[in-house]
C-alpha cells in the first residue's frame, strides 16, 4: 500500500521513549489476517485514537495490548519492555470494555473497588479512592446500586471509574460511547477529554466515528484491513489525506479521477488531467515519488467547504476555463443539478464534464444561490485540491 505510510508518525522527539510501542504486530485467526504487521509508537500522555470501519482490526489491537489474545507475530513494548510473557493481570494497563462488562453481582462501589482489592490496597485507602473515583464521574450517590439499576450512560461512567481508580498509565477504551445516544455521546466526549487531560493518563481509544476521533484525539491512526492507513493529527488527516480512502473516511469530500501529467506551473504543484479533459494544477500533501510520476492514475480530493461556486461569466479574476492559473486556483466548469438547503449552508450539486460531479458548500449570505440548470464555475485554491493515493 502506501509504502511510506508510517513515516508521519515521526521520529520520537529526542530521547522520549514511547509508553507503548507496537512492532510488526500481527494477528491471524485461522485464515483471517486481523492485524497485518502494524507498528505504532504511543507517546506518554497523548490521546491516541484507533479509527476505522468495522472489522479493520481495532479491537484486536486493544486485546493484544491488554493481553487477552496472543499475537501471531511482532512485539508489544511497554516502557521499552516486551510484555509478551505477561498475563493481563500483570500488565500496567486498564480497559474500558465496549459493553462495559460490569460485574452484575456486585454493587457499583464493589465494582470500582475490585482492582484495588485485587492489588491488596489497604481497606481505608480503597474506601477513599473509590469515593473519589465515583465523584470524578459524578456518580457519588449511586455507589450502592447494582449495575442493572443504572442507565447506559451511568454504567459507562462506572466502567470508566472502575478503570481509572487504579491510576493506570495507559487506558484502553473500546468504543466506550458506542451504545449511547448522540446527545449523551457528545457530552461524554468532552468529559472524557477533560478527564484525560486532568489525570494525565495516556488514552488508546477505539472508535469507528470519525467525528468523535477528530473531536477528541491528539493523534489518529486510521486503520483499514488490519493496517494503519495513515497516522497523524486530526488536521493532518483532514487537510492532508494520504489516500483516497483517508480523504473519504474523514469528513466529506469530492473525489475526481485524475491522471498525473507532470509538474505544475508553481513549485509544489502537480499537473493532472481530470475526467472530462480539464487540466488542473493541484497540491501534493505527501511527497510520494510514485504518486507524482507521469501517467499515475489516481484521485484529486477537494473538500466541499473549500469550493466556491459562481455563475458563469461572473468576473472573479480571469480564470482559464477548466484549467489552472499561476495564482493557484483550480477552476471547473459545470451545471448545477440541485441546491439542497442545510441550515447555515446550501449544498450545491454540480455536474462536470465526463460524468463527474461535485458538491460545494455555498454560503447564501455572501452571494445568491445558483439555480438548478444554470452554468457555473466551481473554484478552489490549488493548495486545497489535493492529489491523493488511490
Amino acid at each position, binding site marked *: 500500500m502506501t509504502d511510506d505510510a508510517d513515516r508521519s508518525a515521526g521520529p520520537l522527539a529526542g530521547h522520549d521513549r514511547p509508553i507503548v510501542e507496537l512492532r510488526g504486530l500481527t494477528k491471524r485467526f485461522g485464515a483471517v489476517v486481523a492485524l497485518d504487521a502494524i507498528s505504532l509508537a504511543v507517546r506518554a500522555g497523548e490521546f491516541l485514537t484507533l479509527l476505522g470501519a468495522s472489522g479493520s482490526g481495532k479491537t484486536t489491537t486493544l486485546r493484544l495490548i*491488554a493481553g487477552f489474545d496472543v499475537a501471531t507475530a511482532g512485539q508489544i513494548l511497554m516502557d521499552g519492555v516486551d510484555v509478551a510473557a505477561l498475563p493481563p493481570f500483570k500488565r500496567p494497563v486498564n480497559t474500558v470494555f465496549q459493553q462495559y462488562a460490569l460485574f*452484575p453481582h456486585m454493587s457499583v462501589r464493589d465494582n470500582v473497588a475490585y482492582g484495588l482489592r485485587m492489588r491488596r490496597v489497604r481497606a481505608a485507602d480503597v474506601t477513599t479512592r473509590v469515593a473519589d473515583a465515583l465523584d470524578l464521574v459524578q456518580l457519588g450517590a449511586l455507589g450502592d446500586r447494582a449495575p442493572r439499576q443504572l442507565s447506559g450512560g451511568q454504567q459507562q461512567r462506572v466502567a470508566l471509574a472502575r478503570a481509572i481508580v487504579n491510576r493506570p498509565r495507559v487506558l484502553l477504551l473500546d468504543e466506550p460511547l458506542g451504545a449511547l445516544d448522540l446527545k449523551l455521546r457528545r457530552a461524554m466526549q468532552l468529559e472524557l477529554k477533560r478527564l484525560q487531560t486532568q489525570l494525565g493518563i495516556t488514552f488508546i481509544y477505539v472508535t469507528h466515528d470519525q467525528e468523535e476521533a477528530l473531536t477528541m484525539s491528539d493523534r489518529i491512526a486510521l486503520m483499514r484491513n488490519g493496517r494503519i492507513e495513515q497516522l497523524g493529527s486530526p488536521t493532518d488527516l483532514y487537510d492532508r489525506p494520504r489516500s483516497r480512502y483517508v480523504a473519504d473516511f474523514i469528513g466529506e469530500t469530492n473525489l475526481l479521477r485524475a491522471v498525473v501529467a507532470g509538474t505544475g506551473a508553481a513549485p509544489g504543484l502537480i499537473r493532472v488531467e481530470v475526467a472530462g479533459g480539464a487540466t488542473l494544477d493541484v497540491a501534493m500533501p505527501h511527497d510520494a515519488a510514485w504518486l507524482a510520476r507521469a501517467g499515475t492514475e489516481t484521485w484529486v480530493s477537494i473538500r466541499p467547504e473549500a469550493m466556491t461556486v459562481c455563475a458563469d461569466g461572473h468576473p472573479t479574476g480571469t480564470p482559464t476555463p477548466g484549467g489552472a492559473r499561476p495564482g493557484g486556483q483550480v477552476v471547473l466548469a459545470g451545471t448545477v443539478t440541485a441546491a439542497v438547503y442545510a441550515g447555515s449552508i446550501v449544498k450545491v450539486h454540480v455536474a462536470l464534464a465526463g460524468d463527474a460531479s461535485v458538491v460545494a458548500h455555498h454560503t447564501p449570505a455572501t452571494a445568491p444561490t445558483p439555480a438548478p440548470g444554470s452554468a457555473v464555475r466551481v473554484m478552489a485554491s490549488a493548495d486545497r485540491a489535493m492529489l491523493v493515493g488511490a
Partner: protein
Amino acid sequence: MRARFDPLTAALWTAAAAVFCFIYAPLAVVVLYSVHDAAIIAWPLRLGTLRWYGVLAHDRAMIDAAVASLKLAVLAVVIALGVGVPGAFVLDRFDFPGKAAFRRLVLLPLILPGIITGVSLLSFFSFVGLSLSSGFPLIPGWPVVLGHGAALTSVVVTQVFARLQRFDRALEEASADLYANEWRTFWRVTLPGIRPAVLGAALLVFTLSLDEIAVTFFLIGRQNTLPLQIWGLLRRGITPEVNAVATVIFALSLLTIVLWSRMMRDEI
C-alpha cells in the same frame, strides 16, 4: 379486567382447573388420610389424629431408610458436582476430538431406562469386585453411591454447560484486567455467574436421587432407601403410616421449593 364473557377464556380456565385437580387431588387424599382416625383406609373420613405420625416416629426401619436416603442423596450431589462442574468447563472451554458426540451422549444415563443403567452398573461393580454393602454402615454402600453419582452427573453437566454458554466471557477479561489471577477470577466472577445453575443442578440431583428406585433396586446392599422401604410396606397394602410418610415428604418438598424460589429471586 375480564368484564366480557369469553368462551375461550372460560374453557381455558376450566381446563386449567381440571389439570390442577388431576395433579393435586391424589395428594390431598394422601394428606387427609394421614390424619384419618382408623387403621383401615376407607370412607367415611374421620379426621383429627396424629397417631400415624407417632407410629412413623417409632418405626426404626423407616427412619434408618430415611437417613440412608439422605446420605445417599448428599453423596450423589457431592459426586455429581465434583465431576459435573469441571466437566462442563472442559466442554465449554476446550476443544477435543469427539466433543460433539460426547455432548450428545452425556445425557444418556438419564434417558436410558433405569433398569438398563441398573443392570449395567451391577455387572460393572461385580466385575471390579466391589461389594454392594461396602462402606456400610457409614454410607448405604459404595456401589449405590457411585451409581447415583454417575447417573446424575449428566444433570450437572448439562445445566452448568448451558449457563456457561450464556456467560459473558468479557467479565472474566475485566477481572483479569483488574489484576485478578485465574483462580481469583474463578471464585469472584465466574462462580457467582454460574451459581444459580450449580445450585439448581444440585437440588435436582438431590431430589432425583431421593426418589430413585430402578437403579437403586439393583445396587442396594443391606440397607433399604426410603422409596424401597415404602415400596416394601405397600406390599401389605396402603397403611395410614404410608400416608403419613408421604405427607412428611410432600411438606419437605414444598418447603424446599419455597426456599429455592426465594433464593433464585435474589440470584437473578
